[in-house]
């Protein structure tokens, strides 16, 4: 029988230690200076060492803590939501707010399994209208609403 450990804490500890190690490696390029004249690498080194120590602590605590497994990730939701927002960001400048909003609504809409095609369509129309009203007409932010090839022929 394998020993029961807190897998969450162990994973957390390992990640923190890794981050600290990578950080310290990057920090090698920055001058440390002396205590009275601290260089740009001084404070980060202190912080990174603290991070490493805490990571070690979390890791050790994981071996003694109450047993717990890693939680499953909702990959589908994570992927769809983050992809929707990334594509929105990529489309915003050149293709405009209207099309970007539609793309975001369609992609993120897939993340909720109870959502229907009709629901997505209605939501897209309403949100494009709200965005125009609030951001283009109301706040007059400098984001193009329609694709640039339509407005500047």
């Amino acid at each position, binding site marked *: 029988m394998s020993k029961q450990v807190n897998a969450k804490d162990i994973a957390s500890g390992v990640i923190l230690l890794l981050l600290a190690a990578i950080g310290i490696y990057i920090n090698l390029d920055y001058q440390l200076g002396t205590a*009275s004249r601290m260089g740009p690498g001084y404070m980060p080194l202190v912080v990174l060492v603290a991070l490493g120590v805490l990571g070690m602590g979390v890791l050790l605590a994981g071996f003694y803590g109450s047993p717990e497994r890693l939680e499953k990730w909702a990959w589908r939701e994570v992927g769809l939501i983050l992809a929707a927002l990334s594509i929105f960001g990529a489309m915003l400048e050149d293709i405009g707010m209207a099309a970007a909003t539609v793309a*975001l609504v369609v992609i993120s809409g897939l993340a*909720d399994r109870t959502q229907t095609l009709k629901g997505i369509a209605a939501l897209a129309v309403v949100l494009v209208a709200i965005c125009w009203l609030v951001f283009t007409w109301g706040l007059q932010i400098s984001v193009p609403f329609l694709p640039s090839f339509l407005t500047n022929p």
Partner: protein
Amino acid sequence: MLDNLELGLSVAFTFQNLAFSFVGCVIGTAIGVLPGVGPVATISLLLPLTFGLDPITSMIMLAGIYYGAQYGGSTSAILLNLPGEVTAVVTTLEGHKMARAGRAGAALTVAAIGSFFAGTVATLVVAGAGPLLTTVAMAFGPAEYFSLILLGLIAATVLAHGNILKSLAMIVLGVLFGLVGTDLQSGQIRFTLGFPQLFEGVGFVPLAMGLFGIAEIIRNLECPENRSGTVSRVGKLWLTKDEFSRSVPSVLRGTALGSLLGVLPGGGLALSTFASYMLERKVSKHREEFGSGAIEGVAGPESANNAASQTSFIPMLTLGIPANAVMALMIGALMIQGIQPGPRMIDEQPTLFWGLIASMWIGNLMLLVINLPLVGVWVSLLKVPYKYLYPAILVFCGIGAYSVNNSAFDVYQTVVFGLIGYALIKLEFEPAPLLIGFVLGPMLEEYLKRAMVLSRGDVSVFIDRPVSAVFLALGALALAAMILPSIRRRKEEAIAE
């Protein structure tokens, strides 16, 4: 003090500021009511809307959003049994029980009136204590500041629930994120991983939005039970004579507790509501009703909550140190406006300081007016299905993140922090300490460098200066108090095995 309050009122009573206070209160309530969207997410979501405004107007609007979100949160706690955040958990205990018994209206009324009274008193406390603390803080040198910030960072973990080591690690990670970008003294570019867009540092808005807004959306989609439920009927809003006379002393006690505890850095807000609930249960003459809808259990904690959310402005306004994640957002908003919060603010920006204080009271009054009569509107908001809400929130996040610097890179940063935020939830880390560390990190480095230059590299300066030594001792004490019980518990567990 009266002169100053008059100045503040004259600032707050301009048409523009009144209008934005109103808009902030309405938007804050509307979003706060929505289940699964807490005050921190609400404010980070709406932060970009305020960048085009004057500093004072934007602070007034953000403060309105903050109180509005708190009020809205208690509405959904009472009617839906869904606490938007920790402070509303207590409200569900008695408030939702009252709603089940058909007295939802009374619970909402006592929450609103108690909050208004508490807000009024706490505003006066802020007006009185603010200048006093400022005079003290003016005598602080870099060493005192360094120790104070360190104390603030440690305190930020005291009341965070869960593993103390993990909370501390979040603080440290936040400080590290705060160090990304150009070092001001040497011009050295640090930890930008080759992205020129990071020369100015990690974006504050993307960080807050990603950690709180985006991660919350994914979480809510994953666990549908977090966001649905049956909405109770509101019923009559009026309190009966008996309910009224039972509530008055609870409101007074809650106000006193909240005003005191709100100043504490860390979790003063949550602590004050829990403390008030415990107190009410101890002193109530109707102890048997607790757990099945005692009005004292709504009146006390709701007043405490609102008083504390008011007085939690004190450390932010006088020392520039955030008492909680919302205050960290406020500091971020001020810094984007080019204002460094701290003891000098009261002299350099008296209109900002006093205008904000006056608007606190006005905001509370507005909330009382818009909350009770419009409760039907908020209830209908509760019924909007989440599948229509989250794409709307996403669009607002996207446009908001983009418009800070007109840069798509900030949208991608939001995506990255959304992923980090979700990973933190999965590994049971608290994101709030990270945000506080991020805001305080650069200040911590700055004061450390200055103190060490002055002392010619002698670390003992932090202990030789009495005020600094007291701060450090308090920090050490808090740390010990947190770590010791958990070690003892672990030992007991080990022995029990």
